[in-house]
Structures are given as C-alpha cells and as structure tokens.
C-alpha cells in the first residue's frame, strides 16, 4: 500500500527514502498542521509512508481542516490531532513526547505588533525546543523561517541571494513585525540548538503561493494608498509553489547529514514582477496599477524613513530603505544548496502553479 502511494504520488520522494533519519513508524510532530503549508507537509509525509504523525493545532484552527487531518488516519497509519497552545509548556511537553522529528510551521502571521510577533513565533519555539531537550528523543528540529530575514543591502543590484547572505541586524528598523519575529526565532533555534544539542535545520521559503492564498506578494507592489503601486518592475519574484515548498520542507527534515544547514526554497522558473502582475490581471481581475521606477521607490522609502524619524513616529516606519533592499531591489535567487544537499527539485512548474493559484483566487473572489 505504502509503496503504491510512493510510486503514484511522489516517486521522486521515494528515491530519497534510503537516506532518511527517521523510520516510517517514528512519531513526527507537525505544528501549524492546519495551515497553508502545514497541511501539505502532512500530505507529503503520508505520501512518503510515514505512519505516525502528530498534528498540533490551535483550538481556533478551522474545524474543517482539523477534521480533514483526522480523516487521514487509516489502517496502519495514525494521524493524531492534538489541540493546544504552544505558549503552554505542558502542551508542548505533551506534544513532543517520543517525537523524532519536529516540523515547526506554526507562526504568528501578519499583524503590525512586534510583541505579538514575538509572542506567537519566538516564545512557542523556545517552549518546543526546551520540551524537546527535556524529552531527549529528538533527531531533528525543522525551523521554518523566511526570506524576509535577509538584509540584501550591501551586495550590488542583480546579485544572487543565497544562504550565505547576511541576516538583518536591526530587524526592528525594518518596521516589519514578521521579519523581527523570524530573525529572533532563527537566532533562538541556532543558539538553543548549539546549547542544548538539538539537531536542527532552518528552511527559508521565498514567497509561497498556491490555492488558498489570495494576496499578491508585496514584492510585486502594494495597494496601501487605495490603488496598486507596482514596485517590482523587472525584478524576479522568489516564488515557490506551496506543494513544492512543502516537499522541500519535508525532505529537509528527513535527509541525513544536513544538521545545522539553512535552505532557501524557491522554484526554478521565476517570473518577473511585471509578468506576474500582467498574468494576475488577465486571469483573476483587472485593476489599475501605477509603476514606480526603482530610483523613485528608493527615494520615497528614504523620505518616508526620514520623516518617520523626524516626526518621532507620527508616520510609522512602514516604508524604509531596509524594506526596499529586501522587497524591491533587483535580485536573483538560488536553490542550489537545497537541490545539492537534499535532492529536492520543484515538481510543479510555474505555468501549472500559476494556473492553480489564479483559479484559487477566482474561486475566493480575491482582491489584491
């Protein structure tokens, strides 16, 4: 049965089985299992033949998604749904009991509050790590980070952003609570990993898209001011289709010999911002957009940043040069390390991924 699944659903994944750190019966914990990526990681693990999954979900998680997970249990395959709060240490200790691999996908999403970002991303991560260290059975902690943690400031335009690029040192000055939370979470995983001897990998996806997500990446542009400002221009957008990303995460958690590694996840074919926007308008809905050239967007970000400081925060630091470097500076992206060390390659090509994404947007009557 398992072999059939592997052959039909994920032949390339099956190729990796001999080099996994966990046996198929080993218990695996997935936090954020009802989320956009988390539920696909569960599917990937099941497709690989892992039979003992513990899915951690908040009580506020959508009931239909929790039920969907429960229905995954079948003969010889146990998908346990554990509801709880990662802010609660007892819940964390119960969740990691006997666990061999933790996929930590739960995170605070969006919001402007730095405190909320830390409370929803960093504190749960610390609780999980400490619980795992106490339990002592863990073989790997897979920490899901983001491209947002890179600074991308000092390299010339058009350079390749890879895992060696520096991390944002003054994350609070980016004005992005999510970035701050992720930087602190990565720091915590690295330092706890070393101090407590927990083997870990860090996976940093680019912009994850697919059915279920409806927003346009901020790297393309923003509609903050009531109309869409196109800021990306000819820049490549670091997209990764959700199924491809989930597969990369799954493999990064299982592959032998990659402890302490960091993996960026982007697909092979990346559209330019202009191409993406044009396709979006054609396939989802039409709207007016105004292109702002890079020199002008940089100048406006600089001006906003200056005014925010000068006015002691009368305007929040929503736009600034640090954000410009990350979101709107011309950059190329690499997935070489992921391919080389993990053996991943994106299965869903760009055309197919965009088709599914646009279809999902149309169904969701989405707005940019």
């Amino acid at each position, binding site marked *: 049965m398992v072999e059939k699944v592997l052959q039909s659903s994920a032949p390339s994944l099956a190729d990796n089985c001999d080099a996994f750190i966990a046996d198929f019966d080993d218990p695996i914990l997935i936090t954020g299992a009802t989320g956009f990526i988390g539920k696909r990681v569960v599917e990937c693990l099941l497709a690989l033949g892992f039979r003992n999954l513990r899915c951690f979900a*908040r*009580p*506020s*998680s959508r009931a239909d998604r929790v039920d969907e997970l429960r229905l995954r249990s079948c003969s010889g395959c146990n998908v346990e749904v554990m509801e709880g*709060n990662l802010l609660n240490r007892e819940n964390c200790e119960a969740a990691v009991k006997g666990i061999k691999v933790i996929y930590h996908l739960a995170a605070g999403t*969006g*919001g402007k*509050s*730095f*405190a*909320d970002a*830390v*409370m929803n991303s*960093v*504190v749960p991560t*610390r609780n999980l790590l400490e619980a795992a260290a106490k339990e002592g059975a863990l073989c790997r902690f897979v920490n899901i980070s983001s491209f947002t943690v890179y600074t991308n400031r000092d390299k010339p335009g058009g350079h390749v952003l890879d895992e060696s690029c520096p991390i944002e040192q003054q994350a*609070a000055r980016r004005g992005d609570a999510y970035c*701050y939370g992720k930087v*602190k979470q990565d720091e915590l995983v690295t330092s706890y990993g070393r101090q407590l001897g927990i083997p870990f990998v860090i996976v940093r996806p680019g912009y994850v898209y697919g059915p279920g997500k409806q927003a346009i990446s901020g790297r393309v542009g923003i509609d903050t001011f009531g109309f869409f400002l196109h800021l990306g221009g000819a820049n490549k957008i670091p997209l990764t289709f959700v199924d491809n990303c989930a597969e990369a995460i799954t493999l990064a958690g299982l592959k032998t010999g990659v402890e302490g590694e960091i993996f960026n996840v982007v697909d092979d074919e990346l559209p330019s911002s202009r191409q993406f926007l044009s396709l979006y308008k054609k396939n989802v809905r039409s709207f007016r957009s105004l292109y702002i050239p890079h020199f002008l967007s940089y100048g406006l970000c600089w001006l906003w940043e200056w005014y925010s400081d*000068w*006015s*002691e*925060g*009368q305007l929040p630091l929503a736009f600034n040069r640090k954000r410009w470097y990350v979101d709107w500076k011309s950059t190329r992206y690499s997935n070489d390390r992921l391919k080389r060390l993990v053996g991943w390659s994106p299965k869903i090509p760009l055309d197919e991924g965009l088709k599914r994404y646009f279809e999902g947007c149309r169904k969701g009557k989405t707005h940019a």
Partner: protein
Amino acid sequence: MLRVGIIGCGKIADSHVAEIRRVKGCEIVAACDCEPLMAMQLADRFHIPQTFVDVADMVAQARPDVVHITTPPESHFPLAKFCLENGVHVYVEKPFTLNLPDAKTLIQLANERGLKLTVGHDDQFRHVAQRMRALVGTGYLGTPVHMEAFYCYNLDDPIYAKSLLGDSHHWVRRMPGKLLHNIISHGIARIAEFLHSDEPQVIAHGFSSPFLKSIGETDIEDELRVIISEGSGATAYFTFSSQMRPSMREFRIYGDKNGLFMDPDHETLIKLPGSRYKSYVETFLPPLNFAYQHLANVAMNARTFLRRDLHMKAGMKFLTESFYRSISEGTPVPIPYREILLTTQLMDSIFDQLAKNRQLSREYHNVSIG
C-alpha cells in the same frame, strides 16, 4: 530625571514606551515581564538597559520612580499595590481594576503614601478631547442635560478576534465583564467626567451579537446599551457595539444652552448651537456653519500634523507628561481620583446587571425546558 519602569511587555507597552520617549525629563530604566523573551524584545527594540521577570527585583534593583503597568487587567491590582507599597508612583493601563473596592484600596494607599496614581484613559487627552474640555469649561453648554457616548469595536480584527474567540482560556474571559470589561472604560470614563453625582443610576442591557452566535460564541457579550441617570436630572446613553457600522467612538454632550459633538477618530469637534434661525434660514445657514466648522477642523488637524503632534497616541503622551509633572512638580493628577472611582463604579454596576440578567435568562430557559 524621572526613572521609569515598564511592567508587562505586550502590545500596548510599545505605545507606552514610544510616548514616554517623547516626554522630556524621564528615562526608561527597566522592562519587566514574567516571560523573559517578552521583556528582552522590548528592551532590544527600545534600548532599555535592564530586564526583569520579577517585579520585586525590578523595584529593588532598577529603583524606578514610576512604573507603567501594562499587563492583563486581573494583575493590575496586585502589581499596583505592590509598587505603591514600595514607594513607586503608578500609571495603570485601563481598566484600572476589576472592581470598585480594589480601586478604592489603591487610591487610599497612594494618598497615605503621598504617591500618585493614574489610569490609561488616554483617549480623554487627545487634542480634540482637550479642545472639548476647554470649551465646556467656558460654560458653552450651560447646565449639562444629556450625553451620548458610542464606543464601537470591530471584531473583524483577525489578530485579536481570532486569539480571543478561539481561546477558551483567554484572559479576557476571566474578567467579570469579559470583552466589555477590557474595552468600554474609555467610553464610560468620557461620561463619568461630566457626571456630578457619586451615585448615578444605571440600567444596562447586553447581549451576544448575531455574528458571535453564528460562530457558536455565547459566553461573550459584544453588544451593550446603557442608560445612566443622576438625581440632578442629567442623563447619558452609552452604546458599545461590535457590529455597528461605521465603527465609531463619537461623543455628544448637550446642555441647556448649546451642544457639542466630538469625533475622536476624525479629530473633529463641532459646536451645536442651541439657538435657531427664523423660518427657512434655518435650512441654509446652519449647514453652512457646520461646513465651515468641518473645514476648520481639517485646517487644525493639518496644523497639528505639520507640528509633528498628530500621533495616534498623542493623548497618551499628554497624559503621561501631565502625570509625570504631577509627580515632579506636585501639580494635580491629570485624572481626578473621583473620576477613576466613578468609572469603575459604573462598570461594576453594568457588569452586575448583565450577570443578573444572564442568571435570570438561564433560570427562565431552565423553567421553559422543565
């Protein structure tokens, strides 16, 4: 230089720290939170030199002159009491305490120790609220007759609503008035400021909105209507709604001469003249007058913006500044203690009635089933 400590490093602490940093003559010397990572993130972002997980340690080692308590409300009383007992002035976020006896105890303690207390009713110190207060002070209204306060809260906010509605153990649920307890004090305080009686009558009606019922949430009331009356004949209506659109926070106050309309969201204050023009003139001149007043508000807001003083939490800066002045220069506290007590008392009365109504409703339901 006033030494300031922050107790509780959640979301609202950011606003406190940002506004304290705009006040001259003070420095934030420590941040304290029972979760060390939270204290550290606040200290990291705002360059606060010391962090603590225990209030006693912070008071003993950092020796603050004043602390801002920005923790969930159920801890306000014990933390404020501890700080007062240890000689520290206290700014408590709203709601001040969970009940009137606790509020009285804190105020008595502050008076006994010669310390100052205030509560985070910063909305009362927005520019427009100060303009209204000044106008009322000139006798523009005459004798107050009636007030109407709206305080709406939009449950569409995915962060707060999701964390509250999805968590059966959320701290908001542990308060006597639950969601209402955490939010309505701004609106109630606005009424309390202009009440003269210490024993106003309260009639309250609360219920769960159809929206909350549709998601199976009946434990929380998110709709509230209140009538307040005092012996002098003055009355007030208070409306809290999570469903009403626009989601507004307007305040109207009428005297026997004139009225005033204040809209804090739009920083707008409109005079409502009590006199009337003759015949059809009434249909032309007053609208022109209102148009002029709205334009004047636009101009005033623009001037304030250009002066770099139209911050979202400008009221908090003014309240903090006034409170610190009351500590260092001995001026009166910005919010009279009577007003703090009256606000707490009104809230107690409201929540008592809602609890009784819920009990009656349950008994009626049980009898009907029986």
